[in-house]
């Protein structure tokens, strides 16, 4: 079975000399949800920005068999939908409907088709009622839903979500997990929220200093790297 995403020996260094990725190998298969765990600054977000061609390092990244290169970006960005951590960054058009239609219009769809796609996507995330509102009038949870709708409207095969539960209250987090669970796309979740990862992901990878230090099921990875709050509290307690 051909992977939807195939990354080989990916390396990336920022202009200030920081080595963010140091030889990452990764695969994502259809129907899978993979949680990307790891400390702040371990390279998680840098890694997923490569999947959409927003960053380009050394090594090979292929999305649905298409190599990520400057001349394939339009194709790649249609296949990989990236939902950013801060929804405010993702909502830049004057109305919710215009914002969700932004992607389909850029794909070359006619206005009516783009409008239909946008309305369908808004309905899918339960935000059809807000189509005429200005994005800055929405709550954090609503903004996140609209941001996801903006990506779904592009019909991607892969959803990449960077810290999807950040800024959401517990009911908002639960609602988001339920929504994501129903979406058929393969997903990559970059998250510190182990509960969210447990609920959604069939597999997890753990980033450490720009490399994947381990992978397995979410409970395995969490246990191996002591990566949930309880074990971290226990560690802290034992040090005191």
């Amino acid at each position, binding site marked *: 079975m051909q992977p939807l995403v195939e990354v080989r020996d990916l390396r990336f260094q920022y202009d200030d000399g920081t080595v963010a990725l140091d030889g990452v190998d990764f695969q994502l298969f259809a129907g899978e949800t993979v949680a990307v765990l790891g400390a702040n600054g371990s390279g998680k977000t840098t890694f997923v920005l490569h999947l959409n061609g927003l960053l380009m390092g050394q090594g090979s990244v292929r999305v649905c068999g298409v190599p990520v290169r400057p001349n394939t970006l339009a194709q790649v960005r249609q296949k990989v939908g990236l939902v*950013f951590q801060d929804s405010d960054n993702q909502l*830049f058009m004057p*109305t919710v409907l215009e914002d969700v239609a932004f992607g389909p219009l850029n794909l070359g769809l006619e206005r009516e088709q783009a409008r239909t796609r946008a309305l369908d996507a808004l309905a899918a995330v339960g935000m059809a009622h807000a189509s005429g509102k*200005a994005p800055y009038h929405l709550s954090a949870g609503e903004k996140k839903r609209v941001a996801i709708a903006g*990506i779904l409207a592009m019909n991607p095969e892969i959803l990449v979500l960077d810290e999807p539960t950040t800024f959401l209250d517990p009911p908002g987090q639960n609602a988001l997990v339920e929504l994501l669970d129903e979406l058929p796309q393969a997903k990559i979740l970059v998250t510190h929220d182990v509960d969210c990862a447990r609920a959604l992901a069939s597999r997890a990878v753990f980033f450490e200093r720009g490399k994947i230090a381990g992978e397995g099921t979410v409970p395995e990875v969490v246990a191996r790297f002591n990566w949930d709050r309880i074990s971290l509290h226990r560690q802290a307690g034992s040090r005191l």
Partner: protein
Amino acid sequence: MHHVVLDRWSHGESALHRRDARAKTIAVLIFLVALATAQRAFLPLSVCDLGILAATIIAAGLPLGAALKRAAVVLPFTAVFAAISLAAGEPMRAATLVGKSYLSALAVLVLVSTTPLPELLGGLERTGVPRYLLMVAQFLYRYLFVISEEAQHMRAALQAKSGTLRRAVWDRGKFAAAGGALGVLFARSYAHADDIHQAMLARGFQGHFLTLSGRSFRRADVFFVAGALVIVAGTRAAVEAWI
């Protein structure tokens, strides 16, 4: 926030809101040319022009008082030049300067309050205004939100640390710190703006803002422009003939 209010106003449902952006732009240009070239009988003409704009604002369903107040934002700038004219013993020139700048600002305010910015820029693009210039305008508008949000966050943080903006600016010892805060504001805004740009690229942005609105220049728009021409030019001709 000033631009948020205008953005909200621009999504109205009046007949003026429904006109093509190009028609409204042409009408405003007609008004501005007629205003800028008026020499004789400026005071009665300015009263009539103010009446035309006030009627337009009411017809568009916009709050008249708030619109008149917002257009006054240009007055501090022109007041300087008006004061120079007054000092030079030319009170009429000073009054003309203030009147023309205020009416021009009000006319432009009516345009942007009845036309969502993406539509306005799309209309300008279709009339041949360089795309690069329009893109700069669009980004500038979007990033106004970014800078004001960042400024609000920083102001809240400053107040939480028992400081006040006024003290930071007026206390000489803290002036340098306020300058530093301004630098931080721009650095944060830059980073935020970069994130927005990345989000746009991730959704296929290729340097061209596309919108759902597909308004075309219809017969009603032709009548609208013709009507604007008749009213503006007719008013000026009538006032000048009367005086």
